[in-house]
């Protein structure tokens, strides 16, 4: 038999000014199952809460309805009070007679009647409430970090320093990502490699970090706390344990003319190679597409010269499986290589390059040893035109979003050029200058004022080659739209930043949502910026949207702290208001018919199939099963279930039906 306590709050005069609280308490006391019904001036105050606690103890209440403000305001307060008095907190409900009644209606009998109806509804609900306990999920304290750019490096180090195991997976032969390609970084102009390579070495040396390079994610199963990640280790054609990284094989490799990916095609590499001298691990891989042995079946020069006999031509891809409690995506970005802009001649003229290629030209370790020389003939360009927003903010031809980093790196490029070629003239065509970071605007002003970079506000309509010059035709919108024509020696396009290739496939493997540009979506753009909608999977850096280095590192540390937070408990505690598949005694076991309509509608991939077996292991029935670690309690599956076999705790079918009846029957 239910023994419900009803506690009507006056909220000073906030409720009692329009609602006759004494009448509500009196009427409520006569509801079936209500043992005690009182009203009080401030129910949330200490004496008010004590009234509730004492009533629970005195009347051995089975449920409490606090009729006061919105549950969004004080539900935790009163549930805690109930718990302190020994009543399961989920047996306490709030009847919202302030925001939904006293504040929105004039003083009248109708208002009081409405308050009574609201209380009755919640009394009927609470009678059907069940005592619930929080869900605990065990956690494997290993994180898999996918992507070894600056975001992945930072996140791995942070998690590892917090004392947890990290498996870092990178698909290229070396970690470092795009940051290792950069020459100098804005706004401080410190050398990118100088600040990055020590961290790369830290990753390799850290006892808590296992590094897999030249590796990709094959599949992911499981859920928060307990993922099972299968990693494909692509064959390096090398026994890494034997290889000392002496580099003899690289020197002797006869295939020397392969455009280097790391150098953006401006430099060459061999078929057995390390991407760059500071690579981590500094051990080569064989590029089987270009290796003479794999093409023609003979050569093996590297095998002959290798002093430790580490070359393995017949090595196959292998797999490792890792148990992990959390995944962290840090797959980064790429720059748009496109024929979207045939009028800019990208891909047609050698001296029209993208920003990343310019980074290599300006880098001291680059193909020109840091001298700005144009790719076609190696001459030092007298005039360089930089075109910002080549593809960004252009829904007609490119992408509609702002790539965010180009304003700054273009200013930096112009500045670096001017520092290296004093007599040269850099021009920048721009739409707007977005320099919103710390010291960013000052940096751009410096480029304009000290380094005399010529900023032209306007778009470029065309770049074409004539008599060995690149003719850049554009418009200066600050000169009333006057046409501008510049005879340049080189053109650098700040092409848009886009999602890293393969992002979509990875997102599908991990069930992480992504936007139409294939960037991964955060769970909430403001309040959950490094979480995904899939519990236990976190985001860091430019895989989410293009970001500069400070932002990327901040995001990586934020994601790492989320992972460390998750790992700080042995068990994961979650709210129990989740969906469950109803079960019953044999021979039915469950009314679930196994139509599995619920599986595709679940936004969290929380539903899978469960086999009910007899003692000898024969399958009797296959029904849906809801993973309590993943379910967020939206209830979409409940409404979809044709056989009414799924219910959601706290909003179950009995409860809501009773609410509907209670609300209408006495009205």
């Amino acid at each position: 038999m239910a023994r419900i306590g009803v506690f009507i709050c006056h909220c000073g005069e906030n409720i009692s000014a329009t609602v006759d609280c004494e009448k509500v308490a009196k009427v409520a006391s006569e509801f079936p199952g209500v043992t005690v019904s009182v009203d009080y001036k401030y129910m949330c105050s200490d004496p008010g809460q004590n009234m509730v606690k004492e009533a629970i103890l005195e009347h051995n209440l089975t449920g409490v309805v606090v009729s006061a403000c919105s549950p969004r305001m004080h539900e935790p307060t009163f549930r805690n009070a109930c718990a302190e008095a020994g009543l399961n907190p989920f047996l306490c409900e709030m009847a919202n007679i302030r925001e939904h009644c006293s504040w929105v209606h004039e003083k009248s009998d109708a208002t009081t009647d409405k308050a009574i109806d609201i209380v009755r509804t919640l009394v009927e609900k609470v009678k059907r409430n069940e005592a619930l306990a929080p869900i605990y999920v065990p956690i494997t304290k290993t994180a898999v970090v996918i992507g070894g750019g600056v975001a992945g490096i930072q996140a791995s180090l942070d998690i590892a320093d917090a004392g947890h195991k990290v498996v870092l997976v990178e698909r290229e032969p070396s970690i470092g990502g795009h940051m290792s390609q950069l020459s100098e970084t804005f706004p401080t102009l410190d050398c990118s490699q100088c600040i990055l390579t020590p961290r790369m070495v830290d990753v390799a040396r850290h006892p808590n970090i296992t590094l897999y390079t030249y590796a990709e994610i094959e599949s992911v199963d499981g859920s928060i706390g307990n993922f099972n990640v299968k990693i494909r280790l692509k064959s390096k054609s090398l026994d890494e344990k034997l290889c000392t990284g002496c580099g003899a094989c690289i020197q002797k490799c006869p295939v020397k003319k392969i455009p280097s990916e790391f150098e953006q095609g401006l430099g060459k590499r061999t078929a057995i190679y390390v991407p760059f001298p500071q690579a981590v691990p500094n051990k080569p891989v064989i590029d089987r597409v270009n290796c003479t042995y794999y093409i023609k079946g003979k050569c093996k020069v590297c095998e002959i010269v290798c002093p430790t006999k580490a070359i393995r031509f017949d090595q196959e891809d292998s797999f490792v499986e890792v148990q992990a409690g959390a995944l962290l995506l840090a797959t980064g970005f790429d720059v748009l290589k496109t024929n979207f802009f045939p009028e800019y001649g990208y891909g047609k003229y050698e001296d029209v390059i993208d920003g990343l290629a310019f980074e290599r030209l300006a880098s001291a370790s680059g193909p020109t040893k840091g001298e700005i020389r144009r790719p076609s003939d190696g001459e030092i360009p007298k005039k360089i035109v930089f075109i910002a927003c080549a593809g960004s903010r252009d829904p007609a031809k490119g992408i509609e979003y702002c790539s965010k980093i180009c304003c700054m790196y273009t200013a930096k490029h112009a500045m670096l050029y001017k520092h290296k070629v004093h007599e040269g003239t850099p021009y920048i065509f721009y739409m707007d200058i977005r320099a919103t970071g710390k010291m960013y605007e000052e940096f751009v002003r410096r480029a304009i004022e000290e380094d005399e970079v010529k900023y032209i506000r306007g778009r470029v309509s065309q770049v074409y080659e004539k008599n060995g010059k690149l003719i850049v035709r554009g418009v200066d919108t600050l000169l009333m739209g006057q046409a501008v024509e510049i005879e340049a020696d080189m053109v650098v396009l700040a092409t848009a930043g886009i999602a890293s290739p393969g992002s979509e496939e990875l997102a599908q493997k991990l069930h992480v949502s992504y936007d139409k540009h294939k960037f991964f979506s955060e769970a909430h753009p403001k309040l959950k910026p490094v979480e995904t909608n899939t519990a236990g999977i976190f985001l860091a850096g430019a895989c989410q949207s293009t970001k500069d280095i400070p932002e990327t590192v901040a995001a990586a540390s934020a994601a790492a702290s989320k992972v460390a937070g998750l790992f700080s408990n042995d068990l994961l505690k979650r709210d129990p208001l989740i969906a469950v598949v109803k079960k019953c005694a044999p021979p039915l076991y469950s009314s679930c018919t196994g139509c599995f309509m619920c599986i595709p509608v679940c936004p969290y991939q929380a539903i899978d199939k469960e086999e009910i077996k007899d003692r000898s292991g024969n399958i009797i029935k296959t029904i849906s099963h809801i993973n309590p670690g993943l379910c967020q309690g939206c209830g979409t599956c409940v409404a979809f279930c044709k056989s009414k076999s799924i219910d959601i705790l706290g909003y179950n079918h009995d409860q809501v039906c009773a609410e509907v009846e209670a609300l209408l029957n006495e009205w």
Partner: protein
Amino acid sequence: METNNTNSFEPKVVAFVCNWCTYAGADLTGTSRIKYATNVKIIRFPCTGRIDFMLLMKAFANGADGIIISGCHPNDCHYTSGNFHARRRWMIFRNLLDFIGMDVNRIVFSWVSAAEGAKWAEVVNESVDQFRQLGPATAYQKLIKNSEFQEVE
């Protein structure tokens, strides 16, 4: 459309709302002290995606004259896609209602965000006006009676 000429009729309206947007929006209506008709009483759900549309039939069977369903705006769902499922289900359900002879104007489907306190008051007042015009909902009770009658025969 059913018509009614009695001006004194006050419809009974049940609002099924989601916890994250419209419930919070209605809270904001309260904190902003915007007044609306007392005819509407709210039942809270985690998400509009949870709303089993049989509950609407239950409400009509128990004497509701009108129903408001309101959740997060498209793309704002706390659970990503629950409101889309609710909308799709509503598109089908309204055809069914129409087919069995119920007036689809007795159900108002809207989006009210947690920031739209004033909009919630508008939705309520407009819906109540609309239901007032329609008069008491008796079609469903009649439908039930008819089917019972046939069963007896």
